[in-house]
């Protein structure tokens, strides 16, 4: 399981996880009715990765929309990353938001306040 990819749909995001590079990317939309089902494999992979992580783990989150059902699952993903960070891999979460999307910036700040991992807020053009 060196590389894991899930292609995005109108309701679920694209996920790329390059284990050799310690790079995880979640982008697109995350608005499924049942998010637990969708996020469970990712949480499981992170669990496995945690046993033998790279020295640094870079995470890019670039979501256009996400629903409240996803917000809990994203928190679960971040909690796994928090454990990985504590376990010796330097984790950075790059939270992307579009220029005037204050709601998305605020959502990133909410996670930043809860999760003990360095966050970088990255503004992108629309």
């Amino acid at each position, binding site marked *: 399981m060196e590389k894991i990819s899930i292609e995005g749909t*109108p*309701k679920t995001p694209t996920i790329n996880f390059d284990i050799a590079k310690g790079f995880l990317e979640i982008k697109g939309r995350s*608005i499924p*009715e*049942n*998010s*637990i089902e969708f996020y469970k494999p990712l949480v499981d992979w992170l669990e496995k990765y945690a046993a033998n992580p790279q020295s640094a783990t870079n995470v890019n989150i670039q979501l*256009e*929309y996400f*629903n*409240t*059902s996803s*917000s*809990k*699952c994203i*928190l679960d993903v971040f909690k796994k990353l928090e454990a990985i960070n504590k376990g010796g891999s330097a984790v950075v979460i790059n939270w992307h938001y*579009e220029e*005037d*999307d*204050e*709601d*998305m910036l*605020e959502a990133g700040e*909410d996670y930043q*306040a*809860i999760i003990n991992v360095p966050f970088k807020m990255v503004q992108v053009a*629309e």
Partner: protein
Amino acid sequence: MMLDTYDFYDKMERNNIMLSFKGDITSELLTCILQIMESKLDNLQEEPKIKKKVYNVLVECLQNLYHHMDEVAPEQNDVLRSAIFMIGKLDNQYNIVTGNCIKKEKVEALKKRLEDINLLSKEELKEYYKAVLNNGEMSFKGGGGLGMIDIARKTGEKLNFNFSPVDDKFSFFSLNIKISQ
């Protein structure tokens, strides 16, 4: 019974209804409604900021309906699985209306929850959201109780709701959400 079509049309026209639906709320239906609304918002050339807010709130409103359908009548295919949804735009303000049947014994708790949310300031809503996100139990369906808090937070408006009696077992819960520019 004869429906007065013009009366329906006239009411919808005066409220500038962009899309409405009554019936069973399925996952496929939600996908369609969201696609239609997204292209309508594009055609209106809304600012990305407004477009995103309307779309986000719409997702939460519709998914609330979807999750409550199963709660009321998991397997039946009858009037209880029927909900109403409307979205319109009047004077630069988007209005989203939803309505669905809920069990009478659930009315008080829901009413209390919504009233509590309505008492909170912007800053308090942010703190409450984070507390529920971090500590709240995820329901099996993945609802998690964040939807209403999120709607109140994103719209910056009080939740406008009403309960109407249906019969001895059910009440009709309606929610009217405003999104101003």
